[in-house]
């Protein structure tokens, strides 16, 4: 199962699907041209309302990440660029992380190294998936 639905999260269900789909593409688990599950498949799989999945797919189509081809299914777009990726929540997460690092006595240099390693790891996967085009 690629998606994890968290009913306790403050994030609406359709947003969870939107964000997790984005993450799957960024991490290269879903690649351009890949077929994604139909609304019904994903809804029954996750046991959630099909209208919620539809709403998420519509949003992803609007963002240019998914393309629906009548009769064939829904696919990951070949040329999606995450343009309006919201920076605000990321800055917010960094703020929290900075506080956590302080409490855990992690020095700035160490924190930066750790971040760099993780950032590069994601970058490699992402580069791999775009290189196969």
């Amino acid at each position, binding site marked *: 199962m690629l998606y994890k639905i968290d009913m306790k999260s403050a994030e609406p269900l359709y947003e969870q699907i939107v964000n997790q789909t984005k993450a799957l593409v960024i991490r290269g688990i879903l690649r351009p041209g890949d077929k994604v599950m139909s609304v*019904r498949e994903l809804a029954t799989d996750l046991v959630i309302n099909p209208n919620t999945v539809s709403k998420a797919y519509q949003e992803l189509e609007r963002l240019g990440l998914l393309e629906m081809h009548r009769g064939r299914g829904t696919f990951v777009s070949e040329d999606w660029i995450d343009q309006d990726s919201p920076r605000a929540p990321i800055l917010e997460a960094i703020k929290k992380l900075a506080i956590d690092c302080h409490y855990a006595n992690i020095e700035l240099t160490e924190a930066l190294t750790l971040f760099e390693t993780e950032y590069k790891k994601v970058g490699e996967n992402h580069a791999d998936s775009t290189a196969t085009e």
Partner: protein
Amino acid sequence: MLTVQQLSKTIDRQQVLEDIDFTVDSGEIIALVGRNGAGKTTLLRTMVGIIRPDKGDVRYGPSSIFEKAELKRDVIFVPDSADALKHYTINEAAALYESIYPSFNRSIFRETLTRYNIDNKKIRQLSKGQKAMVTLSLAFAVQAKYYLLDEPTDGLDVVAKSDVLKLMIAQVEARNCSIIVSSHQLHELERIADRIIMIEKGRVKAIMSLEEARETSVKLQVVFNDQVPVELLERKDIEIINVTGRVALFMAKERTKELDTFVDAHDPMLVEEIPMSLEDIFRVQLGGEASVF
């Protein structure tokens, strides 16, 4: 569209339903939630025309179900037990449905049973989970527009419950039918319901979309540099849960820009959004009187 208008019913001098009003669009899944005895079953039975209301009406499109009997072919009520069919075999039950509903599709019914490995037996010989699957499959094979399901998941184990919910989802997605499903446990239905109708003592206590509520409402924990500002405590649009030292925990029914600006202006050290539980959502939506759970 299904419209329930000011439905009222008194049984044995007790008011069981009182001015119930709501509508259901096609393709919607509505969860009807309330305690035992709140009036859920009576409401469903009235909506399908089994019980005549003292007042009010139930309309499917332009016609009233109490005036136009043919409508009943498009509105199926599935009771919470298969008792009425227990002496039938599955095939006999299918034949019965076929004689009542011209649109009953035997191959759809067979297909579902095969998928869940249910053989032709007497219905009383089936497990509780199998009974639920059979009665639902019978109903869905009619391919009606509206389904009223009375506690279809009650007493089922986790796997059977999930099968039942999946069957419902597939139906709605495939044929855009509407489902009104009752339960005394909201947790079971929160994932699949478009809207929730809460009913208490025969009255509608709240109608809401959980997704919408999740999008608009917020629960915040704010740590201030100095004291928690008095102006915050005096705000009418928030509900304070508690204040400990410089930390305030509160919920807002609507997260407005103004609220964010207000918090920012009071120099907070940390603003953290806390996940809202179902109880939180109900409390903030209903205004502090969600004693239903």
